[in-house]
């Protein structure tokens, strides 16, 4: 049984804004300011020990990555509160639109897409430069505020990694999302993105060559396995 506490207090007049795969999000008021409470829910399919470990680890990981990124001036919501025992955190509410939907609705011109993509490339480079990989880079985890300013959210799968391989995987996953969800815009988007990324990321040669290698490998998993 979980005891009634701050969480219940916050939720009392909160409004659910999203029910994701692992968490529920509520818009709440935090000391008079609009905020988002992200609560990681219990999953019955997981054994208890693993369930608790995962929820705790993700809540902690997300809170610390957002905080570290924010300190470096990267566009992320400001962390306001975190409770690792009750698996929730509270962050600044971002007024804006999720990039995925905006692109699917054809909201932006080609030029606007390039502007967003290149700010994003620079942002991800800055994130990688402080040795954080996002772990779930998708257009659903990017919120566009006014003046085409992208903000990065959803750091639950983020990791502290300094190796170029992990950074290359981050980029490769993003490429896959563009390929499957934004087939039409992929080329324009990715070109602008990767150009800005390369310009800003440390150790760019190494990361890009690994990226290219993974791209080739990903397609041929089948064959590699069968040869083994």
């Amino acid at each position, binding site marked *: 049984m979980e005891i009634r506490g701050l969480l219940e207090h916050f939720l009392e007049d909160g409004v659910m804004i999203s029910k994701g795969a692992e968490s529920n999000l509520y818009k709440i008021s935090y000391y008079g300011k609009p905020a988002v409470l992200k609560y990681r829910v219990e*999953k*019955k*399919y997981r054994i208890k020990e*693993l369930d608790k470990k*995962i929820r705790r680890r993700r809540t902690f990981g997300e809170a610390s990555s957002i905080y570290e990124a924010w300190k470096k001036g990267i566009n992320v919501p400001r962390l306001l509160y975190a409770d690792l025992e009750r698996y929730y955190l509270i962050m600044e509410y971002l007024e804006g639109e999720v990039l995925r939907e905006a692109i699917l609705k054809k909201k932006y011109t080609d030029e606007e897409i390039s502007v967003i993509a290149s700010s994003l490339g620079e942002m991800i480079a800055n994130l990688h430069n402080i040795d954080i990989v996002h772990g779930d880079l998708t257009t659903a985890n990017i919120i566009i505020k006014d003046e085409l300013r992208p903000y990065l959210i959803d750091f639950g*799968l983020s990791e502290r990694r300094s190796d170029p391989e992990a950074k290359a995987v981050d980029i490769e*996953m993003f490429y896959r999302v563009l390929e499957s969800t934004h087939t039409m815009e992929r080329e324009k988007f990715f070109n602008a993105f990767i150009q800005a990324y390369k310009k800003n990321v440390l150790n760019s040669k190494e990361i890009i060559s690994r990226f290219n290698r993974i791209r080739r490998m990903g397609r*041929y998993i*089948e064959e590699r396995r069968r040869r083994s």
Partner: protein
Amino acid sequence: MGRKYVLGIESTAHTFATAIVDDELNILSDVRDVVKPGETLGIDPKLTAEHHANVAPQVLKKALDDAGMDIIDIDAVAYSMGPGLGPALRIGATVARAIAYKFKKPLYPVHHGIGHIELTSSLLGFKDPLVVIVSGGHTSILSFSLGRWRTYGETLDITLGNLMDMFARKIGIPFPGGPKIEEIARKGRKYIEMPYGIKGNNMVYSGLLTYATQLIGKEPVENIAYSLQETAFTVLVEATERALTQVSKKEIGLTGGVASNDRLYNMMCDMASEHGVKVGRLEKKYNSDNGVQIAVVGILYMKSGYAPVPVEEAVIKQRIRVEEVEVPWR
């Protein structure tokens, strides 16, 4: 108009198989011949191709005999074009081309994975499912969107089937070790934390295998097997849940050898029920490679009026992705 019949030929990996299916998806025959695994889990392409070439005539003849048909009664031939082992694929394709040429039959190249998917959908009666293939050759989460089957998550290194079989071998259980691991895991009592490999909707299993292997001799094997299974399945179910919330489907079809594992099936059901989603899995024999899955897709092509390919264009594609295939029947 009379009934139509399609002969399906499968030869992507260790299995050479033929089957005859009619246009209402009744299975008239289903014949298979599998290469015995050698010392390693990997398949020797040359030996496999040799095996397939040797058994092809009798496997084909038996499919016709079982269906009580002659080769001229067949309306079309479907063969698996890939992905798979080149030399093995070539045997199936050669047999298919020979029949198509000699008896003037329409010829349909079929993507092996789409065979798994469509067979799963049709046997389970699912209209628009998320399909999870977990076998020795595949670990992928697929769904139909924007005119194609698309991959929404997959293993970035080894497959779930490989993970189970390779761990089994390390503790002295011969191939295929999966079923035995399930049995041993049932006796596990203590969960040991292991590397949890999830990258977005994708799985990473090689770190888990290494970790579990290093524990052999240090912890009771029941606990290792139990923890290995819990960790690997939790990763897969989480990835599936993530994909599910992205595509919002109402059915999950579980297929491939590992689908027989009850723990995995139950976890998938627990996850799905929270979303009001149904889970179905195939009967054991349809989880492994077979000719029926190829024939079923052949029927779908034929019924949708899709143009067959001329014999000289009937190629194999060892590395073809599902996204590359047009799907005229959905």
